[in-house]
C-alpha cells in the first residue's frame, strides 16, 4: 500500500496526517483516500454536474507529488514503496 501524506487544512478535514491506501495508480489511490475520508472529496475532487463525485478529476491548484515530484498524470503507476503527498492550493514567497 502506498503511503499518503496530507498537508495544511487537509489534515484537519481528514483528521490524520498520513495513511496507507491500496491502488494501482495515483488516481486509484486518491479515489481510495476519498472513500476512506469522504470529507476530503470537496477539497480534492471536482464535482460532476449531477452532484456525484467527478470521475476522479482533481480540483485546480491541488498539488500532488509522487515521491517528491509534482505530477499531473493520475495514471502513473504506484507501488507499495511509493509515497504520495497531497497539498491544498497554496501560495507564498
Amino acid at each position, binding site marked *: 500500500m502506498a503511503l499518503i501524506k496530507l498537508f*495544511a487544512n487537509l*489534515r484537519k478535514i481528514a483528521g490524520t496526517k498520513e495513511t496507507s491506501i491500496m491502488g494501482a495508480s495515483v488516481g486509484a489511490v486518491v479515489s481510495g483516500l476519498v472513500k476512506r475520508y469522504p470529507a476530503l472529496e470537496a477539497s480534492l475532487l471536482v464535482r460532476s454536474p449531477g452532484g456525484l463525485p467527478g470521475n476522479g478529476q482533481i480540483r485546480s*491548484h491541488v498539488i500532488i507529488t509522487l515521491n*517528491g515530484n*509534482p505530477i499531473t498524470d493520475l495514471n502513473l503507476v504506484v507501488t507499495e514503496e511509493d509515497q504520495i*503527498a497531497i497539498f491544498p*492550493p*497554496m501560495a*507564498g*514567497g
Partner: protein
Amino acid sequence: MNGWNGKILEIDLTTQTHKEYPLDMEMAKQFIGGRGLGARLLWDLVGPEVDPLSPENVLIFTNGPLTATGYQTSNRFSVTTKSPLTGTVLDANSGGFWGMQFKKTGYDVLIVRGKSPKPVWIEIKDSVVAINDASELWGMRVYAITEKLGQNNNKRNVLCIGPAGENLSRIAAIMNDRERAAARGGPGAVMGSKNLKAIVVEGSTRPEVDDKERYKFLMYETKKLLAASPLTSQALPEFGTVVLMNIMNNIGALATRNHQQTQFEGAEAISGEELTEKYLVKNASCWACPIGCTRISKTEKVEGEGPEFETTWAFGAQCGVDDLPAIIEVNSLCNDLGLDTISAGSTIACAMELSEKGYLDSDLRFGRADMLAGCVEDMAYRRDLGAELADGSLRLATKYGHPELSMSTKGLEFPAYDPRGLQGQGLLYATSNRGGCHMRGNMIGLEVLGLPKLIDRFQVQGKSAFVILHQNSNAAIDSLVVCKFTNMGVADEYFARVLGAVTGIPYATGELIKVGERVWNLERLYNNREGFTPKDDSLPPRLLTEAPTDGPSKGWVSHLEPMLKEYYRTRGWDENGVPTPKKLADLGLNKLVSGG
C-alpha cells in the same frame, strides 16, 4: 492629471532645504511609478562614481498612480537606491499603510539626497515639510520610535531605521508601520549614512480617478476574482506564506544548512501547520487588502507580525534550527533592530559552515538556536563577530578565504528555494538585477505549485522564456505598485484596465508588460554601467557542481550556462548580456544610452 499627483519632493539633508517640482509626465507614462520610476530617476542621479554610503547616493521613495485610490492592495511604496550590499540598482518595496499615506501628502516621489550634519527626522504633513532634530531619537529601536512618533495606521505613519541602519549594516532594512520592511539590499544603511532616522507622513489628498464608474466596476470585479481564487481567499489567509515549508521540503528543494542539503529533517516543526496550530493569534492585513496573509503570532516572549516563510526558513532550515519559538522571537528582534531577515539568517548560516569547517573561530554551529538572538543583536550593533556578519555573507566568507560559501548572487543572499531542484528558479536568481532574489518572478508557481500550469522543474531548454515573462510582469506590478499576491487572483490584463481607468491613459495588456520589460532593461543598463558583466550572472559553485546525494533532487545541479545563453538571446541582448541597440530602440531607451 489623474492617478499621479504630478509632484516630486526633493530634500537635501546637507543644506537642510527642500523643493518641489513637477513630475515629468512622459517619464511617468513610460515607467508608471514605484520600481520603474525609481530606476529611471536613479539612472540620472547616481552614477558609477558614487559610493552607496556616501552623501552623493540618494533614496528615492515612490508610490504609483493606483496608490491610495482604494484599489485592492494599493498600499505599497518602493524605495530605490544604489545598494550598499551589492553595488547594483536596488529597489525594495513594502506594504502596510505608509505608502498610502505618503501618496496622500500630495507627492508621487520623495528624493532624499546629501547627509545631515546631525541626526534628523522628516515630517511631511500635506505638503508641509519639516526637518527635525533627532538627536534624542538616535539609538532607539524600531518599535519604540514608531510609537513615539505617533504611528496611527490610517492617519499618520512612521517609516524609520533601527540600530542596524544607524550602524551602517549593509543588510539593514527600512521599516514602516512598525513591522513592515523594505528589507533587501541594505536600504536602511543608506538612510543611516544620511543621519536620517525617520520619515513621518500625514496626508489628506486622495488621488483623482479618471473614469470613476469604470474604476468602481473594476474594483468590484477584482473583489469577486480574489474571492473566487482559492489562493487569495483560502491558502494565503488560512496558513500564510509559511505553508510552503512542507512542500518545498517534500520536493527536495528546501535549502538546508547553507545549501549543503536540500531537505530538512526538522521542516515539520517549523511549518505553517505548526505555526497556525500553536502560535497564531490572528490574521492581519495591509491597507485596502482583502487577502490578509499577515500572521500575528505569539510566544512566551513576543507577540507580533510574522514570521513569513523566508524568515522561518532563513533562521530555520538554513541554520539547521527546528525551534519555532526561537525563530518567531528572532524575527521580532530583526524587525525591532531593522535587519533583513533573509540576509541575516543566511549570513549566520554561512558563519556556521565557516566555523564547522574550521575557517572561522567561533562557537556557531548548525542547530544552535540559542545563539540566533545574540548574533542578530551583535550584527545590529556591530559587536564582536557581529561587526563582520553585519555586512552580509559574501564579505564575511571572502574575508575568511572562502567566498564560495556565501549562498548569494551579486552578494544578495538567496531565499529558501534550492535551484538544483528548480532549474528556472536558478536562472531567476542568476539574472536578478538586485541579486539573488525570489521577488523578481514566481518560478515556484510554475515549477511546483502549478500556477497557472505545472511545468517540468528539471527542464532546462525553453526555461528562459518563462523566466523573462515573469520578470517583465513582476517589474510592471512593482511599478504600479500593488502586491504580487493580488496577481494570483487577478491577471496582468486586469491591472492594465485598472491603470487605464485611473489615469485616463489607455494601457493595453501588452503595453503594461512592455513597461516591465523597459524597467528590466533599464536596470540591466544601470548594472552594466556599474561594471557588472556576465560573470556576475552566476550561482555559487556548490549549486553548479555539488548534486544532492539523496531526496527528490538527487543527482541534479543547476544547469545555468545553457539557460543563460538562451536567456540573453531571448531577451534581445548580445552574448555579453548587453541589450542590443535594436532592443533599446524598441523600448525607447536608446536615447538614454546615447545621451540624447
